[in-house]
């Protein structure tokens, strides 16, 4: 049993049975995807993810995962879809995913964690991205597990010169959910972007932590997060911009906007700005608040019920991020999921 300090709870890792569902959905073309082998591993220095216990648990127990190696100058147009589906036979996913993208290449990977029964599922996983010079890597992560499940997800990227990693994270489910994204901007003019939405309803507890670690000169990062909390959901958000020695003229930016729909929600936001260099620029902005009463009234005066008016404003704040997901089907599913959660407002 580990004590998970961030949320203030005790957590027992379950036994990890085999995972037998197919998780790579889209293997039409001869990509270099293979099921994870230990020899593929990369271990970024100074990466903690959600914490050592979680990382060790993955290393000792993983039951799924893949390695994707994109060769030099290979631009893979179609997104690769990976679905970790959990049900009564496969309630546990401990996955280790490794994505290595060589120089001048490009790839998009969509990784989706979902339950298809009301079994109490458990996910603890890690996704590691290694983006070499001048590569573009888009990773879209969707978490929509049911209300009794646990989700723990650690993500890390190492970005070399002029490489670019774009993370999109959509957090919609679980009873307890921890998500960490750490991006090491090692190379000169490397770029890291993270756009995310989260929706907390019911009694969900969420721990979200994002770190952009600038080591390369003129590296650029941006974190853009839109959240909604309702019922009795709780959330802790940590956004760190960390400028290490050598990150001259680097720029980092972070924004988190959260809409609080009910008085009983709890929202903590802890931005962190660390500088070992002077010549850097770091900005953060955060706001948490109720929906603007006058906006609500304006919409209601045109016939929208209070619920529909709130829904419209929330959907509008999510829209740019949802619209950037390169799959009509997934966008539709996510929109429906958001809609469903408004059914009991």
């Amino acid at each position: 049993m580990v004590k998970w300090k961030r949320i203030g709870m005790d957590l027992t890792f379950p036994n990890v049975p085999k995972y037998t569902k197919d998780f790579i959905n889209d293997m039409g073309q001869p990509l270099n995807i293979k099921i994870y082998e230990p020899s593929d591993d990369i271990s970024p220095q100074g990466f903690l993810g959600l914490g050592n216990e979680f990382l060790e648990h993955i290393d000792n127990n993983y039951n799924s995962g893949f390695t994707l190696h994109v060769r030099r100058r290979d631009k893979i147009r179609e997104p690769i879809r990976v679905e970790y589906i959990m049900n009564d036979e496969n309630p546990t996913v401990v996955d280790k995913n490794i994505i290595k993208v060589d120089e001048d290449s490009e790839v998009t990977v969509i990784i989706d964690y979902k339950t298809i029964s009301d079994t109490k599922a458990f996910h603890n996983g890690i996704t590691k991205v290694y983006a070499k010079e001048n590569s573009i890597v888009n990773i879209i992560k969707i978490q929509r597990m049911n209300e009794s499940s646990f989700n723990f997800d650690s993500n890390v990227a190492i970005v070399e010169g002029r490489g670019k990693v774009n993370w999109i994270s959509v957090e919609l489910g679980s009873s307890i959910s921890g998500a960490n994204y750490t991006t090491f901007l090692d190379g000169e003019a490397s770029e890291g972007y993270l756009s995310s939405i989260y929706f907390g309803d019911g009694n969900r507890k969420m721990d979200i932590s994002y770190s952009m670690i600038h080591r390369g000169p003129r590296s650029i990062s941006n974190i853009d997060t839109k959240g909604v909390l309702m019922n009795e959901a709780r959330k802790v958000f940590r956004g760190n911009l960390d400028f290490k020695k050598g990150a001259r003229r680097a720029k980092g930016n972070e924004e988190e906007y959260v809409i609080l729909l009910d008085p009983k929600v709890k929202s903590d936001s802890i931005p962190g700005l660390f500088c070992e260099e002077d010549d850097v620029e770091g900005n953060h902005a955060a706001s948490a608040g109720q929906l603007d009463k006058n906006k609500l009234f304006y919409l209601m005066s045109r016939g929208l019920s209070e619920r529909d008016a709130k829904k419209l404003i929330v959907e509008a704040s999510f829209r740019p991020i949802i619209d950037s997901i390169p799959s009509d089907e997934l966008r539709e599913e996510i929109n429906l999921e958001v809609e469903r959660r408004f059914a009991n407002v």
Partner: protein
Amino acid sequence: MSKKLLSIRNLKVNIEDKEILKGLDLNIGHGEIHIIMGPNGGGKSTLAYTLMGHPRYEITDGEIKFEDQLINDLSADKKAKKGIFLSFQYPEEIPGVTVEEFLRTAKSSITGEQQRIIPFRKLLKEKMELLEMKEEYANRYLNLGFSGGEKKKNEILQMSILEPKLAILDETDSGLDVDAIRIVAEGVKRLHNENNSVLVITHYHKLLDYLEPDFVHILLDGKIVKTGGIELAKEIDKKGYENIRQEFANK
């Protein structure tokens, strides 16, 4: 059935425990055009918001009846469904929601019938042409970055799509250039018929020249203190409110 569309009796309204409307009476019949004028801070917008059901405005006394039904406590969406519309003095900006999407949702809620995309788009296009609005505004976010005048026109566009029985225009003419005032007035006239009524709050009598109102009311310090015809508006235009203020104070 009475001939009254709206009847307000002895309406008292507080904002944050401060009394703003202090016993206001007003009757509007089917198919009538009424004007309310009055000095700044007199309570005109307060009346408009209260009629529309803004939760911040607390009715402490009196009654508002619409088509003979008491509507004091109805929420804004229910009032909209009954056929009341307010053109806001300061329309809100809603990023992320386009004019078209919003109006289709609004029209669907008010009529109770899901508006289909293609026919609705056609309707919207027609109405926009009548108001000399460029087509691309349909795809812009609601009021976001609109100029003052564009926002007001967009209110009239919403009115002509939603076709209310009672349209309340709170200083819709303020900030409009002369052509825009004419276009807005024409829009209002198209809505107005033997059933649909209009309540116009204004400081200027330019709009009145187009609209031929049935009644002009002066709202002063939370009450309607004087009612007349268009000549009353002309008198105010010339002499201001001082005479009326004194006349009322002497009573």
